[in-house]
């Protein structure tokens, strides 16, 4: 898919490879690179996966691999956690249910 110059995109790049990581990093973290994600306006027509340059919202130029066009927020309220229903039921019963200590 062709992404046009000027489109708002998400890019990815490796900041530090595993062997470049800081000495104090724990072993599991040392096995993986330090990765980063930056959004900006694409500076040239490109395809997903290409190495590109973007101009960020503050006007900085940043290089990275093109991942996504018009990246959307996907976070939400998750799956329903039914246990939470019980909290209010119990508390209202303790406060106003007429029981002495329970």
């Amino acid at each position, binding site marked *: 898919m062709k992404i046009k110059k000027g489109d708002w995109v998400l890019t990815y790049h490796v900041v530090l490879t595993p062997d470049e990581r800081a000495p104090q990093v724990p072993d599991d973290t040392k096995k993986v690179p330090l990765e980063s*994600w930056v959004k900006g306006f694409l500076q040239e027509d490109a395809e997903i996966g290409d190495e590109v340059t973007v101009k960020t919202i503050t006007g900085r130029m940043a290089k990275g691999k093109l991942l996504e066009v018009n990246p959307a927020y996907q976070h939400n309220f998750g799956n329903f*956690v039914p246990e939470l229903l019980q909290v209010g039921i119990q508390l209202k019963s303790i406060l106003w249910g007429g029981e002495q200590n329970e």
Partner: protein
Amino acid sequence: MNNTSYESVMGRKNEIMKKAVGIDYNVFESGDIRFDYEKMMRDTGYSLDEIQKIQLATGVGNTPLLELKNLTKLARKVAPKGMGARIFIKDEASNPSGSFKARRAATAVYHAKRLGYKGVIAATSGNYGAAVASQAAMQGLKCIIVQECYDSKGIGQPEIIEKARKCEAYGAEVIQLTVGPELFYTFLRLLEETGYFNASLYTPFGIAGVETLGYEIAMQFREREGKDPDVVVCTNAGGGNLTGTARGMIKAGADQTQIIAASVNLSGLHMASDIQFNKKSFTTGHTGFGMPFSTGPDRSDVPRSAARPLRYMHRYVTVAQGEVFYMTETLAQIEGLERGPAGNTSLVAAFSLAQQLDEDKIIVVQETEYTGAGKHVQPQLSFARDNGIDIKFGNPRDEVPGQNIILPEHPRLIQAQEVDLNKLRRSYINHCIDDYGQKEISNEDLDFLVQETKSSIEFVKEIIKEKDIKISE
């Protein structure tokens, strides 16, 4: 063009920071252990009066003080007869960016603008990012926020992803990284590249920005109840919240109020571990920051942190993740206040501590934070469940961070756990002495260690004696 390798950027740290904070920290150093904390706060900060003006101009502060009558009633139901202090909460979610961090950001961004910086950068995965972004929008500066957000599988903490959205909503650029302390390296490179101001959480003006919170608490209570509160509970991570609040209370003359720190217990989880990153359900307000920043405040992103919590805390308690989620739900269900979980850490502590106080006493929770998609009891618990964490009702004392989250099966099981403050004080003193590396310290350094740990000469002397360190005549 500068060398951008990890080692050479870290090697230029002091030079980069000096340019990016506009403070020469050397003038406060003695060359030995001590530095002049109060001089640093005086010379580089702002007076309380100036800060009130700066914050008023951007709609920060003067947040409502709410009495939680139903929660107090609940505490009295489970407390011994005659016990159960009145619980109040300072609704800091009412600040423009939705948390008390707006106070810190207001002064930092004001200062950056006054010094002529074109933009501000902050390294934070917390509410501070949105606070800086909001202030930068108001004051017309550019803003970059650097976050630690994802594990190596690209799975992000929902709470942090939401905070990124909020920063972008205020027009900031957000750079998201995987787990690791080298975030600091990216941060330094950005400071060097842009010449922007380091809106660190730990500068004197950032901490001075929180002093108005303590000051307001004292003033609001005098007006309303005719007295100072007996206890103020502060959620503790980097220590700035507690330090600023306590200093503000002292400036108001409320020097009899006990200041109690509270953190979520995440013991056993390594904060820089890729695998454990998404096994935790709190990304701030926890012991993973609270303990190391108490015993070594200068590990922050400035040479000398203005946040020095051991100077001000009377007690330190921890609470369990399940207790905080439960209390967040409680606040919504019986007080009609839907707020973010992390800010309710101190509320759990207050609910428990209130039961150790008489009914005529007053205990204050000094913050709340905004809530929304990702940053809410529902998605945070759902995320935990997706990551294999067992969520169930039971006794919170059986909770093992990274394995389960135990919602108290009855509110009487909510019990803040006392941290041995002397152990933390000892650890702080040991750090100082080990870093210093000399066999003899001066009387001035001895006094400094006493002040830093809110302890006594005898206490410090005992520790340095154990380490075979002499006091020079």
